[in-house]
């Protein structure tokens, strides 16, 4: 299996008024094609910052990044944004925690899909875009894609909006999908449907999925491998089975034990 993501000695500092605040220090790991990997950590672990650097997404805080991130052959730390544009959507998809933050509030969804598709020259006409969008929305489980497309983001529930975002992120069949806490804001029954959807995309298309979460239930039930983050350090990594049965680091043990104890009883 080829390596799609290679992170080497990445450190991230936030440049705040008081000086440089270390968020992530010296992290290295690899993700292979077709894996479903989770980046697990609690608040303040740096997982969100790390994943934004991996996807080369802007942050509101000025930051300094050292180390290297090789994603599908692109140097995500140093390549200028204009050049990365060609791989966005086509090879790398991104889904965030708040779907409404990723959908334009005023444009009809149809137009948003058309923007995305025509920007990458995947379709020539609005009609082509609409057809492709409809098919995509059906595949992500939306029952009436045509009326959803004619409508607006604020008419959707959280779960449906997230499905639309996933549809938009995967419409051009990227090789990698990065999901930053995609279900944290959703109800349990909805969460399971979204995760099932991501798992289906992973299985059927071989799409590599990197999912950031703090929910160990997600890790246990959906992921092959996990990377455990604590206060900016990669404390342990390995297959999910190994982490649950033989955690090595005391933090991992505490994290996994404070929950698995419950299940056994």
């Amino acid at each position: 299996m080829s390596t799609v993501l290679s992170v080497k000695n990445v450190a991230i500092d936030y440049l705040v008024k008081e000086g440089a605040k270390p968020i992530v220090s010296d992290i290295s790991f690899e993700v292979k094609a077709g894996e479903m990997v989770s980046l697990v950590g609690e608040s303040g672990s740096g997982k969100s910052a790390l994943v934004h650097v991996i996807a080369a997404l802007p942050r509101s805080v000025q930051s300094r990044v050292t180390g290297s991130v090789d994603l599908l052959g692109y140097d995500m730390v140093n390549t200028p944004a204009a050049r990365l544009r060609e791989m966005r959507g086509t090879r790398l998809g991104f889904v965030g925690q708040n779907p409404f933050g990723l959908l334009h509030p005023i444009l009809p969804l149809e137009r948003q899909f058309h923007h995305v598709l025509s920007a990458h020259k995947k379709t020539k006409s609005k009609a082509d875009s609409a057809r492709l969008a409809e098919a995509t929305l059906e595949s992500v489980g939306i029952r009436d894609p045509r009326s959803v497309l004619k409508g607006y983001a604020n008419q959707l529930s959280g779960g449906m909006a997230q499905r639309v975002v996933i549809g938009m992120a995967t419409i051009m069949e990227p090789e990698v999908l990065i999901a930053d806490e995609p279900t944290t804001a959703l109800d349990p029954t909805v969460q399971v449907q979204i995760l099932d959807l991501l798992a289906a995309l992973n299985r059927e298309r071989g799409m590599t999925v990197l999912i950031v979460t703090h929910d160990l239930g997600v890790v246990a039930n959906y992921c092959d491998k996990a990377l455990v983050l604590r206060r900016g350090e990669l404390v342990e990594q390995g297959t999910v089975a190994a982490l649950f049965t033989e955690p090595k680091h005391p933090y991992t043990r505490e994290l996994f034990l404070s929950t698995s104890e419950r299940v056994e009883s």
Partner: protein
Amino acid sequence: MTRTPVVEIRNLTKTFKRHGLSFRAVDDISLTIQAGETLALIGESGSGKSTTGRLILGLEKPDSGDVLFQGESLQTKSAKEVRKLRANLTVVFQEPFESLNPRLRIGAIVGEPLVVQGVASAEERVERTARALERVGLSVSMADRFPRELSGGQQQRVGIARAIIGNPQMIVLDEPTASLDRTIRRQIGDVLEELKRDLNLAYLLITHDIGTVRQVSDRSAVMLQGKIVEIGPTAEITGDPQHPYTQRLIGAELPVSVAKPRRTLIPGKEATL
């Protein structure tokens, strides 16, 4: 033999109007909570579980129906009398920081129930505040600090200390650990368990987390769109759910264990969300 429940709600209904449309948040529900028991009110967003909690606490007025405390209807009482009864029925909210007045010190926050009810002298208040803080695992020196100086877990402990200082009979816990990290959740859960045993408290636990429900509640009621669709001992609700929605809810639980096989994928057209 039936004992008088601590809290009983009868045919409670609450409708909200939003942008000209009205919707029934709570639709004719009835419940009892006995002394010393933990009842979980389970549901997802829009189920009406939080509104039910707010109705019991007096933060909303019901459109119809009644809330009874120790068998006495609150409707028959004056506003002043109801306020006096509030000492027995306290609350811990989901958001630790927002539940505390940022301008007051911890000591004043925890001691406020005693001031409001006028039940203790200044010295007694200091003493009881100290004891409440210790009970929840905080050092007494915290009393001089401000909420913003505390971590999330500590802030939630302050909220719990405030809830127990007046020796209540029941606490309404509205998703008390949802905003906290996993490792902290366990600690707070332990504190709540211990207090329940030591002080013989009844809990109304409002949540959507089945894991917590399993762990701490005796009975569970499942809410959907303002109605209770199923109610019974927790073991039965979680082990053998009867109502289709309950089954979906229990089925959506993600057990934190690799012992069970990975979920099978059923990508269906279920987008009625």
